[in-house]
């Protein structure tokens, strides 16, 4: 067997995580209605177990086996689907996720939640033994009479092509050895003469004696499930007389058969030694996993009952699954491109002026083709937002248990497509918003009833496209934000001057101030983790923004506005001297012509421009970048006022050019980071233009102006 399994590992991991998601969704559905989702849950668990066995993920195999057994009983109707069982199964899903990670990193997962859930599972499984159905009696007897070992005789005669299908008998025996003690006798009588051996064929067959207190026939069959069609399998339960028969048989057989593999004795040893090997030289990793456990602790506490957060365990999978239709479309477009190309080159072979018209139409076609191709390629990176929304049913389920509130989740627009990179980074902020909504937004059942609302609170997630961006709304029908409380807190914290009149939007914006949280609101659900300021920062770093709307007694709405993709940016082209720069449109507040009377010159060569009630530092780009500019006088110069994180700066430019979408190219691929520049792009004429890094420039400017601005503020206060 020379198949390198490692190459399939990423696929296995991906499929396992998908399977876990299927299980999770299925389990949540199972609660509300009895449908056939139990089958899909079982199938998912089963293939995870199968795959895990193949890749030697023993921890996963063992654990999933328990889960599978429980599911199997549910599937066959031998067990009622109880709410408590579903709860355990949901926790098991988290455990499997942890175990897959642990096995993948070749460490022994020592998270206590696993042993806890494992014992819960066992408990639940054993409780089923009180079932009166005859099918189960057998089994329960076995589990109860643990000391009474039973023996099974298995005749396993694989077909010669078994190994060609990627199966290895050794895996099967190892799996069996996990179940029970084994005695395996290999039958080599079919082995041909050495010269006749076909290396790809399997000539051996095995007789296995399995002694175990709790293994059932089903368990054994399950091990062979993957090779069922490729072997003859006889499983017989040995009665005491039969055992002695076999022993006699064996005595006879042993004379003729040279090979007798004692998997039972070798297996545990090698396992132990490998565990030791792992434990000692890898102690640094062991430490890191410990810290991992530590860091996830607070969050698992949030999720309740020591569950690991679903989002955390999700690895960064560097691949995309693309719908066949999208690929087909690409192939179509490439086909068209090739046709256009060949038409053009044919035209070029014997070109004369009479064919100019043909040439221009050909070029038009080429333009069209490239445009379409570009759009389709961009679309490959786009995934439906349901990928990000999928975790929320589970989250809400956990939160409603934790808070004791009845919460319903409504998801709209889950087919809205979003760039994969954006999707990956928006997940955590959204989780935070949803948690907040569940914890602070939705009132407790009593309060709701007292206010004449339905006892069930609703959180709705909604995604839709607006122009070149996507809007994600997190709505709740709770009590709304207490404007006064927020304002008082802000005044208390010194963020806002007392007696200042603020609009609602300005007040709600205070929620995103670092360290801002009204004391009464802190609970163990949303009092920890990322703060709202981090949410805002994350969204801003994606080039998006967040808005809050709230109505007392009716609920709140957090609106997240994100660019569809990080690869394209809406930009304002400006000219400074001979250079063209691009300012991201989203940062621009306004562009204006500076009026002489509003300019304040302060010490330190700093110029402030009075923009309504703000003093905006003016930043001449030509100075910052050491360029020759046309316009060096601030009077009547063009100012582009940009804002980042509440700080406004006026950039002085020579000319405003067009607004256009630009494709962002990295400078760092071949060169270093340049201060004040976030990237580059290629303009229509093929030349390169720099994209200004507004946050970077503001920091650069602020460094120069910190002192200057302070004096200016004082100065203004005096004037007022």
């Amino acid at each position: 067997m020379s198949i390198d399994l490692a190459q399939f590992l990423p696929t296995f991991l991906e499929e396992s995580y998908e399977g876990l998601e299927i299980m999770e969704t299925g389990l949540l559905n199972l609660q509300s209605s009895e449908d056939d989702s139990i089958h899909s849950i079982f199938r998912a668990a089963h293939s995870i177990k199968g795959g895990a066995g193949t890749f030697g993920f023993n921890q996963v195999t063992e654990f999933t086996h328990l889960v599978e057994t429980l599911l199997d009983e549910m599937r066959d109707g031998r067990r009622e689907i109880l709410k408590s069982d579903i709860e355990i199964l949901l926790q098991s899903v988290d455990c499997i996720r942890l175990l897959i990670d642990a096995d993948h990193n070749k460490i022994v997962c020592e998270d206590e939640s696993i042993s806890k859930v494992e014992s819960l599972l066992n408990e639940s499984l054993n409780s089923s033994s009180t079932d009166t159905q005859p099918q189960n009696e057998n089994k329960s007897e076995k589990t109860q009479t643990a000391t009474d070992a039973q023996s099974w005789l298995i005749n396993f005669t694989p077909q010669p092509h078994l190994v060609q299908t990627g199966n290895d008998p050794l895996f099967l025996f190892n799996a069996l050895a996990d179940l029970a003690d084994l005695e395996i006798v290999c039958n080599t009588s079919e082995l041909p003469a050495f010269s006749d051996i076909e290396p790809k064929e399997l000539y051996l067959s095995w007789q296995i004696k399995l002694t175990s207190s709790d293994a059932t026939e089903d368990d054994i069959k399950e091990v062979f499930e993957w090779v069922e069609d490729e072997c003859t399998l006889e499983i017989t339960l040995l009665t005491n007389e039969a055992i002695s028969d076999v022993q006699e048989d064996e005595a006879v057989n042993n004379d003729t058969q040279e090979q007798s593999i004692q998997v039972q004795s070798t297996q545990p040893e090698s396992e132990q030694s490998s565990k030791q090997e792992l434990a000692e030289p890898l102690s640094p990793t062991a430490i890191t996993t410990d810290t991992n456990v530590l860091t996830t602790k607070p969050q698992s506490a949030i999720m309740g009952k020591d569950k690991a957060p679903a989002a955390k365990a999700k690895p960064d999978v560097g691949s995309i699954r693309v719908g066949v239709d999208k690929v087909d479309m690409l192939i179509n477009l490439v086909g068209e491109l090739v046709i256009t190309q060949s038409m053009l080159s044919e035209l070029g072979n014997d070109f004369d002026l009479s064919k100019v018209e043909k040439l221009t139409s050909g070029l038009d076609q080429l333009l069209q083709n490239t445009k379409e191709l570009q759009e389709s390629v961009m679309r490959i990176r786009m995934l439906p937002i349901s990928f990000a929304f999928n975790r929320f049913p589970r989250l809400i389920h956990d939160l409603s248990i934790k808070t004791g509130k009845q919460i319903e989740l409504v998801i709209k627009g889950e087919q809205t497509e979003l760039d994969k990179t954006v999707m990956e980074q928006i997940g955590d902020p959204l989780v935070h918003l949803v948690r907040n909504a569940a914890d602070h937004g939705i009132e407790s059942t009593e309060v709701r009833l007292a206010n004449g609302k339905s006892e069930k609170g609703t959180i709705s997630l909604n995604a839709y496209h607006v122009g070149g961006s996507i809007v994600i709304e997190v709505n709740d029908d709770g009590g709304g934000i207490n404007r006064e409380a927020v304002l008082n807190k802000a005044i208390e914290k010194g963020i806002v001057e007392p007696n200042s009149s603020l609009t609602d939007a300005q007040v709600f914006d205070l929620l995103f101030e670092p360290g801002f949280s009204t004391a009464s609101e802190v609970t163990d659900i949303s009092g920890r983790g990322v703060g709202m300021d981090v949410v805002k920062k994350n969204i801003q770093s994606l080039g998006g923004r967040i808005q809050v709307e709230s109505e007392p007694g009716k609920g709140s709405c957090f609106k997240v506005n994100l660019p569809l993709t990080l690869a394209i940016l809406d930009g304002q082209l400006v000219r400074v001297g001979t250079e063209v720069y691009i300012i991201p449109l989203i940062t621009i507040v306004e562009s204006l012509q500076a009026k002489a009377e509003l300019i304040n010159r302060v010490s330190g060569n700093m110029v402030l421009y009075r923009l309504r009630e703000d003093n905006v530092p003016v930043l001449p780009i030509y100075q910052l970048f050491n360029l020759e500019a046309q316009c060096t006088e601030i009077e009547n110069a063009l100012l582009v006022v940009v804002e980042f994180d509440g700080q406004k700066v006026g950039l002085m430019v020579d000319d405003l050019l067009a607004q256009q979408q630009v494709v962002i190219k990295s400078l760092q691929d071949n060169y270093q980071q340049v201060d004040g520049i976030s990237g580059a792009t290629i303009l229509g004429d093929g030349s390169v233009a720099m994209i200004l890094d507004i946050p970077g420039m503001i920091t650069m400017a602020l460094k120069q102006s910190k002192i200057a601005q302070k004096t200016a503020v004082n100065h203004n206060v005096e004037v007022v």
Partner: protein
Amino acid sequence: MMNEIEQEYLTFLLDGEEFGVDILCVQEIRVLSPITTLPNKPDYIKGVINLRGVIIPIVDLRERFAKQALKYNDQTVIVILRDQTAIKPMVVGLVVDAVSEVYKFSDKSIREAPDFGNKIDRCFIQGLASHGEKLIILLNSQTLLNQDELYHL
């Protein structure tokens, strides 16, 4: 080790001297296209150009090696170097006076450069080789394609 490992070098002229680089590192030779300058960078970094959608920096090798700068014209060529060995290869364009020849040198015929009278940082020089009467300075493509070396004076 084998003694007769031959390598091909592309040579170019720079202020009357002939320099050579390992030809396997040369991606292409181009006429200079319009350069976009980068703010606050040393003179020898001329800026960046768009090479089929990839943004690559342009270094004037004369200025990098502290020689008299030359005004660019439509004959000015850039040699695009690309590190073939790295996983994420760095690409850079070098402005040179003119491209000259391709020579084959065996390892044996490359001599170490004497340690005097040269303004070029020693780390960029791999050795000297002679072809007939001409003496060719062979540049070390590893250091040329190392961001820290090339962009640091």
